[in-house]
């Protein structure tokens, strides 16, 4: 019996070692894949820059789009926007720069390009509510982590002294109150962030805004490329959007969200 116990113990030890080995191999592969991933992204990015410099804008845009598809990056999207602008596609350019600001709200290049594009194309910025404006202060995922951290920090500051049989100090309660306040603010910012995911931009020039989601639908008005709109619902190949000028249906191919679903 005792020999059997010792055998089992040895087997457990061996299995643990094997798992450890598997973990090391997996981690190595993961990091190797990540390096390969980044290399592929850089290849497309470099190719896009070269094509843009050569004046081959459609091909350059395709290369930047491929790079962005593999891994969205602020610089890639800035370059994609510049290339689309040079091709004469104001809507796609503004969308790319808005996506840049979605990833990195502090990207000065995208901000300047957006300002320039809107001055040239005569289109407005998307109107944001106060909680949506607050959500632009930090990258989207930062709000997520900040909300989680502040909540559990508040909970921890309240609960952990009891668990560890320590007296609740004043600073701990202050910390809990501050963390909880931060959590409440982060909640509104997160709500604004989710609300901003419904904002998109018109891609094509003179895109018809239709009364009904049909091919022969009555045209309410035509929209300028780069005009912001909020997606309300979809039906078939059409999206119901709300713009500054009114509401109506637009073809899905003529409208794209900043944060694609």
């Amino acid at each position, binding site marked *: 019996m*005792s020999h059997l116990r010792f055998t089992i113990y040895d087997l457990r030890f061996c299995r643990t070692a094997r798992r450890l080995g598997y973990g090391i191999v997996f981690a190595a592969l993961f990091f190797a894949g990540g390096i390969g991933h980044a290399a592929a*992204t850089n290849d497309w*990015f470099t190719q896009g*820059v070269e094509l*843009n*410099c050569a004046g081959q*804008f*459609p091909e350059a845009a395709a290369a930047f789009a491929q*790079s962005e598809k593999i*891994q*969205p*990056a*602020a*610089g*890639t999207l*800035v370059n994609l926007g*510049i290339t689309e*602008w*040079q*091709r*004469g*596609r*104001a809507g796609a*350019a503004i969308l790319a720069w808005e*996506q840049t600001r979605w*990833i*990195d709200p502090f*990207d000065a*290049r995208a901000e300047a*390009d957006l*300002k*320039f*594009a809107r*001055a*040239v*194309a005569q289109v407005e910025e998307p109107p944001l509510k106060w909680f949506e404006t607050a959500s632009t202060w930090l*990258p*989207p*995922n930062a709000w*997520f982590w900040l909300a*989680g951290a502040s*909540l*559990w920090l508040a*909970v*921890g500051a309240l*609960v*952990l002294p009891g*668990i560890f049989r320590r007296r609740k100090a004043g600073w701990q309660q202050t910390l809990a109150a501050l963390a909880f306040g931060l959590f409440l603010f982060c909640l509104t910012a*997160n709500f604004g*962030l*989710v609300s901003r*995911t419904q904002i998109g931009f018109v891609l*094509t*020039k003179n895109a018809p805004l239709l009364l009904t989601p049909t*091919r022969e639908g009555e045209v309410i008005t035509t929209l300028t490329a780069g005009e912001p709109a909020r997606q309300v619902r979809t039906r078939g190949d059409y999206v119901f959007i709300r713009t500054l000028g009114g509401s109506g249906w637009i073809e899905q*191919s003529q409208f794209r969200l*900043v*944060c*694609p*679903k």
Partner: protein
Amino acid sequence: MKIPQPPTANAKRRAPAGGRIFFRWRLLAAGWLCSAGVFTLLLQAQVPPQVSPEAAAQMIMRPQTPVDNSQSANLVATAEFDPPAVRPGEKTTYRVTINATQNSIRWPDEISLPAGLSLGPSARGQLTQPDGTPFRPLTEFVYEVTPTAAGRMVMTNFSVPIGWQTVEIPAATLDVAETNAASPAARKITLEVSETNLFFGQPFRVRVIFPATAGNQLEALRDVQFNGGGFLTDKLSVRQAIEPVGQGDKLVPAFTYETIATPLAAGPQTMSAQGFTVPPFSAGPLTITARTGPVMLGGAASGRPIFLVSDAVHLNVRPLPEETAPAGFTGALGKFLADKPQLSTNRVHVGEPLHLRYGFHGDGDLTRFVPPATPRSRDWQIIADPPPATGFTLIPQTDEATNTPAIPFSAFDPATASYVDLTIPPLPVTVIGDGLPVQLPVLDDEGKTTAPLKLSGLAPAPGKTAASLRPLQLRGGFVIVQLLPVLGFVALWQWDRRRRFLEAHPEIVRRRQARRGLRREKRFLQKAAAAGEAAAFVAHAAEAMRVAVAPHFPANPHALVCGDVLAQLNDAERNGRAAETVRTIFAAADARFALAPETQADLLALPAAVEAVLLTLEEKL
């Protein structure tokens, strides 16, 4: 060619103003028909020219002379057998003529016949006769009658309601006798169709032939109708001509009425034609010397129109195999060929239109040709040319377009009973995108140009990256990530709860520690036994026993002696081998305190007994 001009009543008297105009019109028509008749005698049938929808609408919407349907008091009905004398079994026609519109006559569904007559197919038709202004209606009912016995058959008179009046149809008499001379061949019309085995929607030619009489006297047909519900005849493709047709082994001049019909129902169909005889010229009979002999136009033997009905033609209309219909099928049937499409240019800027011209030709019916439907394309705005032009205006929407869009089109070839793909293929084009300005001057308050606002340069590196543009809040793992801290707090709570429990029950901790110590001592014990080290074996065995019984007192294991271990054994064990093993081990262990410690090597033979004692003690923990 000398054309005799016999004096006519119209020529003798001076006609009123309206009559003069009508007379001139008739003269013009006579001249046109004469020329047409002469020239078409030796010509083959030609495909009718294409008529544009606007011209067709004008033709259809031309104002017509009104028809007098005022139901005048002098309604007249006539009835007769044509011919009135036949042999038994010889067909004749029972003909009733009423000068009223067909819709106003409530004709009985069945008429009573005298014995000895059998009724065949019937037909009815309406003619509007020019009688100054307005036209006068004339309706005729015909029945095919076959006498089965000889005798004098009398079709009695009967009444028919017409509007609010009642008109009496007079009696008609038919002499049936074997001695009757063979009646001359009845005037009849023949219906010819180009095909009898058709597909649904397949246009086919129908021709009504009205041959000249034995004396080459030729008459025309008016108000020609085709009976049978499953067809649509094309009024715009009607062609009337006087031409030679084969009758037996010889050519005879005949009036022909030709048009195009389209089957609108699948399955077996029956078709017949009917019409009224009219002289081709009102000016009088004209005699033309043609290759087939002298032909007399007009001056018909009968002074009034005669209603004629052709024999029925049976057709088989097959449905189209719709399940295999390719994209772009708009209903075109026939043998079509596509011309090579032509582009106005192959290099355009975004938003600049170019024109694509295509053409189809063949032996199909082009009057009902439906051009290819305008396809939808993300890269192109496509505008079809208004008919009858064939082409598309294409406007590129993006510089990504490298080809014009393929425009699907197909036709059904009845000869092979299969669809033929006639898709207009994509043609290569170069679309140039027009860039937007990259620099914008900014003006100050005084309107002077200051530093230009310009587009930034390209980013040298990808920069800050993100796994996805989709925020974590909207991903599926959001809930799981939020649950992780919850799980941590639950674990902490469980740990604290267990800690409090163990504080309330310290014996559990002692027993657990004892079990852990016992396992440790057992390992040392087995190593010592394997190494043959008797002293170590005894020491670890004694220590294991102390550790195993310590929680029962509770006490520190080092404070326990042999008696304490024996006290934990039951009576049977205390008097048995287990107690002896305990005493032996403790005696040997205590021997180390002797002046001359001596360990018996035979103690190494006790592992099994020691193991049994330890197992007994472990079970009590």
